[in-house]
């Protein structure tokens, strides 16, 4: 292995390994990328940011040979290339961690990593070599918690993401593009990713890094390129930018209050939801109270049971012991249906697989809850729909457009709209801003504030600590299926992490 170290200062002088110029791409008449130029140097982490639909993933797919460019040139170490299939990119030393998961759950880690280029002896696949090489690869990256022969479905979501990254690295790539690699990661896994990226830099690998988490961009990147509507609107050293200037570039206007203030007139009232000594196979000793007009944030590491908690309250994976009260009355969420009848809403963490029927229209998705649970109110809700969508600032051709053609942010707004239709009393939000752009995020935050002002109770799970701290009235921290403690929103991120990782065990201010 190449053990040469590139000290920070010398980066600018390292050779250009990837140079893109004048790249354009349209999807049947709509120009998604316009004249994009970019340079990537060896050992450099190059941040690529922009709103949803700005064209970041498309750019990566062009580089990876998934799509074919309309015009422009791509040069690898000075030599023009023209990939028509991801394999060619791999062979040329360019690999990609795509935005969507790209693993086969029923195959082992090793089989996944070497999929499509299984080591052979003769015509037979050499499984031993495959396992050994995977072991070596994981060791090199400092990953100890994953066994090469484990089926991927047995891994946690975070571990799966790590496997994806390991897979990209395994191509011995000189350039690795990562499309939102941390979208499913929190805390220690992000740390692990940082350290992997560190090692890759040491080896002189150039990394193109897409993320909506600005903190990571500033932590990791040497250079930042901002895309807006398919055009590069800025490309500068990270040191020359700050949060505010970056956001201004991305959205084209300054965003003054990132986390909106509490709406005047919001009153934190009586407890709406009370959970006492509740638990199931994944959770235990859950005690919490949630008041009207209150936003409570739940922080914790990946796999700490936050999703299970909201799913239990929502009846998707019910509590098997303990008790709950809703507005003073006994509340047993045996199924999602009972929960919805009690006007409890859950915005799930995975929009595409849990939140939307992608082939159906915006209107059909928006009415889905009403139709399933309160069919009598369908007409009413249909007439309300335009109002809801306009207040959420949804951008679409019309209400009959299929949801699959919307951008991530607009899709999330459709999910919100379908829950607003039942005028929920209790709103459970699981990673409500995952993978959506700053503008859409602010819309979600505003909506949360507005709901609180109307006297609804809100429970929000998020892996983004600034978001949890910025939006919540109180913060609960989970660890291993238990509520590890409660913090005030004025706590620091370090305090939250200490509680979440178990570095600090108890004592709760209240």
């Amino acid at each position, binding site marked *: 292995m190449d053990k040469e170290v590139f000290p920070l200062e010398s980066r600018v002088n390292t050779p250009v390994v990837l140079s893109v110029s004048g790249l354009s791409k349209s999807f049947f008449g709509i120009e998604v990328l316009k004249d994009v130029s970019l340079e990537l140097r060896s050992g450099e982490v190059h941040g690529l940011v922009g709103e949803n639909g700005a064209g970041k993933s498309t750019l990566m797919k062009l580089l990876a040979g998934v799509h074919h460019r309309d015009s422009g040139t791509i040069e690898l170490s000075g030599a023009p290339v023209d990939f028509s299939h991801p394999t060619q990119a791999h062979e040329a030393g360019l690999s990609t961690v795509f935005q969507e998961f790209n693993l086969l759950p029923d195959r082992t880690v090793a089989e996944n990593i070497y999929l499509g280029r299984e080591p052979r002896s003769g015509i037979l696949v050499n499984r031993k070599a495959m396992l050994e090489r995977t072991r070596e690869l994981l060791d090199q990256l400092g990953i100890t918690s994953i066994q090469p022969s484990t089926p991927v479905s047995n891994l946690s979501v975070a571990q799966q993401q790590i496997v994806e990254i390991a897979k990209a690295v395994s191509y011995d790539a000189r350039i690795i593009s990562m499309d939102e690699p941390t979208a499913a990661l929190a805390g220690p896994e992000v740390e692990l990713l940082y350290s992997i990226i560190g090692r890759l830099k040491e080896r002189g690998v150039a990394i193109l890094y897409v993320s909506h988490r600005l903190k990571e961009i500033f932590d990791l990147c040497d250079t930042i390129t901002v895309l807006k509507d398919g055009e590069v609107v800025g490309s500068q050293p990270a040191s020359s930018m700050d949060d505010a200037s970056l956001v201004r570039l991305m959205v084209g206007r300054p965003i003054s209050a990132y986390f909106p203030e509490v709406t005047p007139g919001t009153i934190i009232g009586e407890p709406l939801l009370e959970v006492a000594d509740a638990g199931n196979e994944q959770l235990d000793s859950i005690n919490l109270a949630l008041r009207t007009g209150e936003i409570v944030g739940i922080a914790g590491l990946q796999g700490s049971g936050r999703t299970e908690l909201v799913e239990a309250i929502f009846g998707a994976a019910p509590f098997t012991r303990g008790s709950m009260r809703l507005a003073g009355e006994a509340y047993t969420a045996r199924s999602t249906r009972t929960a919805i009848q009690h006007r409890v809403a859950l915005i799930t963490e995975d929009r595409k697989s849990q939140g939307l*029927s992608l082939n159906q229209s915006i209107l059909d998705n928006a009415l889905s809850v009403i139709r*399933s*649970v309160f069919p009598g109110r369908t007409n009413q809700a249909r007439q309300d729909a335009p109002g809801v*969508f306009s207040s959420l600032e949804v951008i679409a*051709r019309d209400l009959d457009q299929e949801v699959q053609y919307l951008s991530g942010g607009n899709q999330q707004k459709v999910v919100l709209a379908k829950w607003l239709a039942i005028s929920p009393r209790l709103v459970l939000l699981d990673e409500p801003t995952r993978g959506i752009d700053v503008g859409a995020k602010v819309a979600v935050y505003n909506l949360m504030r507005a709901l609180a002002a109307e006297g609804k109770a809100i429970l929000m799970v998020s892996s983004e600590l600034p978001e949890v701290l910025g939006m919540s009235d109180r913060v609960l921290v989970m660890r291993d299926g238990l509520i590890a403690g409660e913090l005030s929103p004025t706590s620091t991120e370090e305090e939250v992490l200490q509680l979440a990782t178990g570095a600090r065990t108890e004592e709760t201010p209240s």
Partner: protein
Amino acid sequence: MSVSENAQGTRNEILARNRSSAGDRLLRALRTPSGGVFILLIALLIAVIAANPSFGEPGSLIRFIGRTAPIAIAAIGQYFVIVSGEFDLSMGSVVTAQVFIAGNLIGDDDARVLPVLGLMFVFGAFIGLINGLVTTLLKVPSFIVTLGMMLALLGMVLYSTGGAATGNPADSFRQIGRGGIRDVPVLEIIPYPVIIFVVTAAAALWLMRRPYGRTLIAVGDNSRAAALTGARVWWVKTRAFMLSSLSATVAGIILVGYAGVHPSVGRGYEFTAITAVVLGGVVLGGGRGWVLSAAAGAFALETLFTLLNFLGVESTWRDSVQGIIIIVAVAAAAQTWQRKRRGASSRTHEPTHPIAPPPTVGTNERGI
């Protein structure tokens, strides 16, 4: 009172303004494979009439619709199951079972017609219930459940009747499938099966626009998401299976009248129905397709057979021609869906704009 009516009016207007016009939606629908089948059907009809002009006479056409009614009704039933992402292979056996029930229980006794008719519907619903519950609650793939049902049901029927029905049921019962309203101007006759088909199709169309129908499609598209929106997925799907068996029951009732009691009545119905549904642009796996297209698929299939008949294609080759046409039609449909998904159809990239109630122009610049 009138004020709120007014408010209603404007709200409907706003809704309308935020949707494509009905014509637009129809046009868009026609460009999908589900719409394409109507064009295929028309083309086939023209070809048949060209081959044999007398087929185009109203009297012939209405009789043709009448005799295609049972398979079209079965296709509508199969549509419910397929659009929810499942299969119903037991349909043919249900038809045969119902034919035998009618033959053996009604006999020559007119008084038994109504009670047995009731029993047949209960029986149909029951079979669907079993199919649905085993599929949804025991999580056995419906292909397997209904395959097992197909074997078991037919076996039971043949076992308990010794393979032959006592005889054809009373004429009053058979009139449902054989008779019609006579002396109609132009048409001469409107066969009852035509009326039953029209009613079934209208009911199916209505049902698919009801919350149940929309939920059914949503379940077929993404059952996890549908479950999380409070849909009782097991019950939604089970009802689809019941609708399928019930439509097989209706098809059976017509066929008893049309053809009489015989063990081969209903044979292969499941495959014909599935073929018709797929020809109608409905995607195996669920979540896409229009109910009337399934019926149109059945008509296209029958028209094709008639065409082959009139063209004098050697009868042994008909299977082959049918096979080729099915593959070509479905391949064409698959290409269309795919192009659509890839965004080929410019329609998917039509200018987008904020969805808004019209009066307030430009209010989205709230300057966050």
